[in-house]
């Protein structure tokens, strides 16, 4: 009986505590009040020419092109700077539409459907590790998140310089190769080819000829397996098929890497040799 009395009291006390505290419910915040990332979807009447172009590209290709943002939108301790408007507009028209998305969808529809990132970030410069120092940034673009790709240096890319544009597009495919690597994994067999022979930080002390002799398509590929993978894709995207075949026949390691990567891409619907000639023709034969 005593215990029952005590328990009843306890329950009552507990209930009253909850009931009495639940009365405070008048605080109301409007739902749209906080936007931690400071990204807004602009209403249509505010759209400029680039917004309209980005919208068309989004509808046609499903890629959201991001050209304006805050310094730390991507990652809190990395700093990226938006491109100048005119340059971003010209770049989006020429590189994003004409040299990347249009030929990709037309020539490689399956690959386009499955392997195209959903966000593309345009950067005026490159990656900065410090918010305000004067050091010039590094890194051609960024990747590593398979839904998002980005390219840097748009403020300094001269769209009338065919060689520079060709190099830029090839590097875009290099960055995309990192996406593919992150998404599927290049595999242990690839890593075993050059295991133990990577140059690491010393890559820049090597010559390109030495790198080829050591089984890397570029000396930067000798830096680490992930760059080995991306530079192989880059090489196949940059040089004509015959030149690539001649080169790989000179070195067993190059040949094995070539075989693995062509298959990796072909399985997904991408013929890198065809991609090479499509890009080359678009830039040099138009």
């Amino acid at each position, binding site marked *: 009986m*005593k215990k029952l*009395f*005590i328990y009843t*009291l*306890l329950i*009552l*006390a507990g209930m*009253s*505590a909850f009931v*009495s*505290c639940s*009365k*405070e419910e*008048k*605080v*109301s*915040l*409007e739902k*749209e*009040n*906080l*936007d*931690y990332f*400071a990204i*807004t979807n*602009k209403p249509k*009447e*505010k*759209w*400029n020419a680039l917004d309209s172009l980005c919208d068309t590209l989004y509808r046609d290709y499903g890629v959201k092109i991001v*050209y*304006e*943002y*805050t*310094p730390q939108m991507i990652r809190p*301790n990395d700093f990226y*700077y*938006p*491109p*100048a*408007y*005119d*340059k*971003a507009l010209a770049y989006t028209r020429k590189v994003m539409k004409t040299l990347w998305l249009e030929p990709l969808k037309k020539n490689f529809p399956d690959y386009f459907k499955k392997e195209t990132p959903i966000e593309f970030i345009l*950067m*005026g*410069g*490159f990656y*900065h590790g*410090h*918010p*305000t120092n*004067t050091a*010039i*940034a590094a890194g051609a673009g960024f990747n590593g998140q398979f839904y998002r790709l980005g390219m*840097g*240096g*748009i*403020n*300094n890319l001269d769209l009338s310089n065919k060689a520079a544009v060709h190099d830029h597009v090839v590097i875009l495919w290099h960055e995309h190769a990192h996406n593919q690597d992150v998404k599927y994994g290049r595999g242990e067999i690839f890593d075993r080819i050059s295991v133990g022979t990577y140059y690491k930080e010393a890559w820049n002390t090597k010559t390109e000829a030495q790198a080829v002799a050591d089984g890397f398509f570029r000396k930067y590929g000798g830096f680490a397996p992930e760059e080995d993978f991306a530079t192989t894709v880059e090489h196949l995207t940059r040089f004509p098929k015959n030149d690539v075949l001649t080169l790989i026949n000179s070195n067993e390691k190059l040949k094995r890497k070539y075989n693995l990567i062509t298959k990796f891409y072909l399985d997904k619907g991408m013929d890198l040799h065809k991609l090479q000639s499509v890009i080359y023709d678009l830039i040099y034969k138009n």
Partner: protein
Amino acid sequence: MKNILKISGFLSLLLLLFASCEKDNITTTVEELVGTEKQMETDLKQVLGKSPNGWVMMVKSTLADTACIPVVMQFDTTKNMVKMKSVYGTTPNNKSTYLINKGVSGILLNFSGGSIVSSLMRMDRSYGDVTDYVFKVLAVSSDAIKIQCLKSGEAYKQEGGQVYTLFKRPDSWKWADDVTLLDMKTAEAKVGLNNVNGILTLNYIPTSKKVNLGFSFRNSFDSNLAAWQAVDPFYNNASANVFDKFYIFFNPVNYSNTGTIQTVYEDTPVARQGYNALCYLPFSGNASSSTSNAKFVKSIKTPYFVINEVIRNGTNVTIKVASYDKTGKEYITGEYKNFN
């Protein structure tokens, strides 16, 4: 007895519970804040467009105490675009986007596209004290907008950088109009100036002090301009590359001028062509710019001159220059003449 103790114990516990909950009557100001923010956002949107000649942000260089560097911003509030002009360089097609956001710290003015503001963030502090291109909006009125760099710059330092009070561009600032008054890149501008001896008279408004300088123009970099442009700190750093590739020339100077035109010069600071302006901020890669400019800027107490008028009368050329303080008032006015 024990029971009474227990019961009274529980009763006091109950009392405590009620009493403690009573304290919960916190009068929250959240709704009020939201209201203030909404008002500020509306005000900002309206006010930005209400200065057809634009708003001015005065940026402070570590090289000058009183003179501040103007950045003129013209907002197109229908399309959220902003055009900027400044003394650092020329930008004929310059425009960029801006956004008004609500962030955790209130209303934010975000110069979201690449612009002079994001560019200055990557320069050293002699080019200005801008440390972010996102600004917290502190106050808005019809003739002033008070904003603060969201971050102070260095990683792990406190939030909140420089505070700027934007004001409407004064009508007397002819340099900021759309008309080009002097662009030394062009052959026409060089006539009567290049390799011609002249004199620059400066009046320091707060002290009424007058200074005469022997002054000339020399297009010595023309033959090798492309190579020099590679050391342009703005062009050199793609993140900051929002200006045209720079055009530079020497402004030979004689500090001991006695009031008439002379033919000797003591030093050769390097000027870069700004938007109707001459900019003397030093840049690495040119020894003369590093040492002579530092000396010149210190001596004349400003890193720039804007050009408000160019009068050509036959071969006689008069150029009216000025430099402004933090509030946009004339700190220095001056006149260059190539005749006595």
